[in-house]
């Protein structure tokens, strides 16, 4: 175990990623609100289930800075999303677009429910037919009255 840990420590690269100090991008209150609304919809590519709003990964911080710059230059949400999709693909969006490639994704669940309803309706209909076919026994009034009185 100790040997393994030592080997791991020796194998780990001694170098670290460089972070460049970037100039702060001032935003108006309105733009800050726009940014805050936009970031939760964008996915961090490194830590896939976090949004850019939550993530502290270096790439997420870079992308957040990038988006901040786009917001400052007055770009709309669809324009900014397109900018990221052009580079990283639809995966960067938490809400995938509705197009032929995603029809199964968006419509699949509804199709399944519809299918289940059809099967259920058929079952009910056939069981009703069975029930109708099996004629009900004539009720013995005297026996029923006796049963109820007890």
């Amino acid at each position, binding site marked *: 175990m100790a040997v393994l840990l030592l080997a791991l420590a020796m194998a780990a*690269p001694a*170098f670290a*990623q*460089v*972070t*460049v100090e970037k100039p702060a991008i001032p935003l108006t209150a309105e733009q800050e609100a726009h940014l805050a609304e936009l970031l939760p919809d964008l996915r961090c590519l*490194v830590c*896939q289930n976090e949004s850019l709003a939550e993530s502290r990964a270096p790439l997420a911080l870079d992308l957040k800075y990038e988006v901040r710059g786009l917001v400052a230059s007055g770009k709309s949400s669809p324009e900014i999303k397109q900018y990221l999709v052009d*580079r*990283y693909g639809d995966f960067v969006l938490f809400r995938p677009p509705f197009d032929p490639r995603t029809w199964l994704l968006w419509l699949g669940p509804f199709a399944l429910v519809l299918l289940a309803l059809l099967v259920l309706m058929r079952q009910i209909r056939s069981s009703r037919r069975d029930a109708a076919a099996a004629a009900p026994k004539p009720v013995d009034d005297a026996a029923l009255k006796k049963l109820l009185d007890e």
Partner: protein
Amino acid sequence: MRYAIPLVVLGVLLAFFTVGLKRDPRLLPSPLIGKPAPAFSLPVAAFPNTDAAPLKLGNAEFAGKPYLVNFFASWCAGCQVEHPYLMTLAKQGAVTLVGIDYKDADADLRQWLAARGNPYAPILVDLDGRAGIDFGVYGVPETFLIGADGRVLHKHVGALTPEAFERDFKPLLGAGS
């Protein structure tokens, strides 16, 4: 007949799982494939075999011949893994290898090259990661094949292996001209 529907459902589920669970969720398809490579113009870090290195290189300087763009960094573990193979590729000389040193310190890069050798024709520096964003890089190492016409033909995420190069890159080397 009674079991036909459940069996069909089971079969469909199994088919989805056998395909879906084998996929690596970290491998994302690049939207850049088939599109012109993102424009870049980056300062040169190391330019062997020339005394007067140009200060910056961009797409125009590499046009007309297919080339590989390899995003790497001295701090990246996968880059250590692929480095020996990049040296082999450089020796074979089948394709120009452009290295883009991603968010890396100059001193670290020099130490890295001194220890392992330099497989790159030029090394360009992407200190703040802006070029990486334009290429949709989300984890170094990533390797792009750019055709002679300047289009992105293929992207490989993770350490480049001989198998991946032979399978995915080699057949495309003649394309895009």
